[in-house]
């Protein structure tokens, strides 16, 4: 049985301009010990879909799904109190912005301890020791002293380590890392990613890593999901995806990788922009930017074709019939 199973997830926001589906028809399946990467351009709904799985979409955002199960438990039917026993304990999340994701009013150690206390992860007499241990574990030097620092007294990289320590404090079975390195220096990015992968291996947890960076995907992921304009457009095992992308959007993303553009004068880019709230095209959402689009693509929205785990949302998939 899959650890996290999501079918047909949709998230709808209501704004003054009407309703807007930020996420539509997303499926996620992840097993224990798996590393799944979710890639896609800015605004494609990566964060929103994972926040929805965590139950963190605040009113008036509306979440629907055919299936939203964690370890066999239907998350949608839980009461908020029951859900809080799972969220933060068995499923934890690390966010994009380490500098603003920690509360500026409390020392970092206190904030980790709070998570431990909320889920009674260790007896209260052991909380302090455990905080020191966790900080040490994520590579913070002199943890006994550092735990008394406030977030503004630490660097972004250090704060992200604290966030990771907090996320793994209750030994989660699933860790969702939402672009954990986007806000950090290049040199620190590698360290943080290595730390995450290392922790994932050591603890055997499942890891969902949201990223923009295909290079990171190639290095870390077992499986990949590509998102475009709120939809999942392709999912595949990492090697398959890199060797034979099926959705033209995936192919374009890969073509834009510097390693692959070797010898060419300039990096190929994808013409146009991701459709926003008001300019959703009919048919396939990618068709205005797609070199292969034809009449069918601009009239009918494609469904997902292929087997679960190796599917593409395309009428004209690359590499032969779908």
């Amino acid at each position, binding site marked *: 049985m899959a650890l996290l199973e999501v079918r047909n997830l949709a998230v709808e926001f209501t704004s003054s301009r009407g309703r807007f589906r930020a996420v539509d028809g997303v499926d996620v399946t992840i097993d224990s010990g798996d590393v799944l990467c979710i890639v896609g351009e800015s605004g494609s709904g990566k964060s929103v879909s994972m926040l929805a799985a965590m139950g963190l979409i605040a009113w008036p955002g509306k979440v629907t799904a055919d299936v939203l199960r964690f370890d066999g438990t239907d998350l949608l039917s839980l009461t*908020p109190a029951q859900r809080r026993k799972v969220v933060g304990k068995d499923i934890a999340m690390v*966010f994009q912005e380490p500098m*603003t994701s920690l509360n500026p009013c409390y020392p970092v150690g206190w904030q980790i301890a709070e*998570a431990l206390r*909320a889920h009674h992860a260790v007896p209260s007499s052991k909380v302090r020791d455990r905080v020191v241990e966790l900080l040490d574990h994520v590579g913070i030097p002199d943890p006994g002293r550092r735990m008394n620092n*406030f977030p*503004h007294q630490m660097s972004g990289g250090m704060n992200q380590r604290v966030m990771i320590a907090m996320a793994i404090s209750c030994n989660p079975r699933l860790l969702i890392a939402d672009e954990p390195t986007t806000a950090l220096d290049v040199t620190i990015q590698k360290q943080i990613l290595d730390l995450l992968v290392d922790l994932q291996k050591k603890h055997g947890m499942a890891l969902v890593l949201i990223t923009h960076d295909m290079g990171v995907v190639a290095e870390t992921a077992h499986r990949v999901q590509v998102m475009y304009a709120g939809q999942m457009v392709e999912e595949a095992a990492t090697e398959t995806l890199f060797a034979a992308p099926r959705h033209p959007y995936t192919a374009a993303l890969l073509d834009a990788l510097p390693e692959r553009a070797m010898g060419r004068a300039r990096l190929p880019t994808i013409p146009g922009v991701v459709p926003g709230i008001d300019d959703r095209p009919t048919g396939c959402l990618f068709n205005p930017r797609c070199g292969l689009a034809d009449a069918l693509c601009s009239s009918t929205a494609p469904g997902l074709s292929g087997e679960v785990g190796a599917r593409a949302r395309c009428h004209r998939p690359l590499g032969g019939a779908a």
Partner: protein
Amino acid sequence: MLRYLLRRIMLIIPTFVGVTLLSFTLIHLVPGDPIEARVGERGIAPERLAQLRAEMGYDQPMWKQFLDYERQVVSGDLGLSTVTHQPVWHEFLSLFPATIELSVCAVSFAVLIGIPLGMIAALRRGTAFDFGLMGASVTGASMPIFWWGLMMILVFSVSLGWTPVSGRVSDMYFVEPWSGFMLLDCWWSDDEGACRSAASHLILPTIVLGTIPLANFARMTRSSMLEVLGEDYVRTARAKGLSDVRVNVVHALRNALIPVATVIGLSIGGLLGGAILTETIFAWPGVGHWIIESIQARDYPVLQGGTLLIAIIVIGVNLGVDVMYSVLNPRIRR
């Protein structure tokens, strides 16, 4: 921090000169002087008046009177009241506890009710509760204290007879003025009736004086809270699986209070102004009442000394607020 404190304390000097100059000028612009005010309608022989004036130094040129007063104050002497012939400083000390008692009650009332209301309004933004509260707070913040006080007396004291009209405690009780704070003194004296009487005398003045700050605190808390609720760390707190109360109070409200604390501190100056009106309406024997009476009696030393002392207290309170602000906001510490 220490240098900052020192700089703030140095600010007392220009404030001192400004406040004394202003109160001196204003009260001397008002026709009459303490002697004429004492004599009143009876009239007085012009020679006698001139003689008394000369004795008190009121025949000197204005600038000389001012400099003399300034010199006297700097040497630590605020002078004697022209009415009671008691040292101004002693009178102030004996009356000030009543003003503190009223102000502390009013601020506590405003804080304890305004902040939770503002928080709930933010959490239920857009609902009838939110709109109702914000409407009420606009009304409350622009309430004229005199009118409001009289209305409260009319309704609760006169029509309903629930609360006393004026004073600090019923004449039936004699309470040893141990601390000067009537509630505490009554508590000490172990006289239940006196306690109840003191408390009931406090209710209306507290509400009247606390209404404007309450409305301001509620609005400030609401807007500050709305801002904080969108912050990433609130989402983090939720992602930890904390209860709603903990997320909203320990994480959101704690941060939202930082700007509210500034508003609370700044409102203390205005509160003392309001206390003067409130004390007059309710015959509350505090410094506000005392200063108003000193104007009628042209009691120069009391008026000038009282104004100066209040100004110094406002500066002190604002200094305290700054210190408290840095305690509340770890980002500006050190």
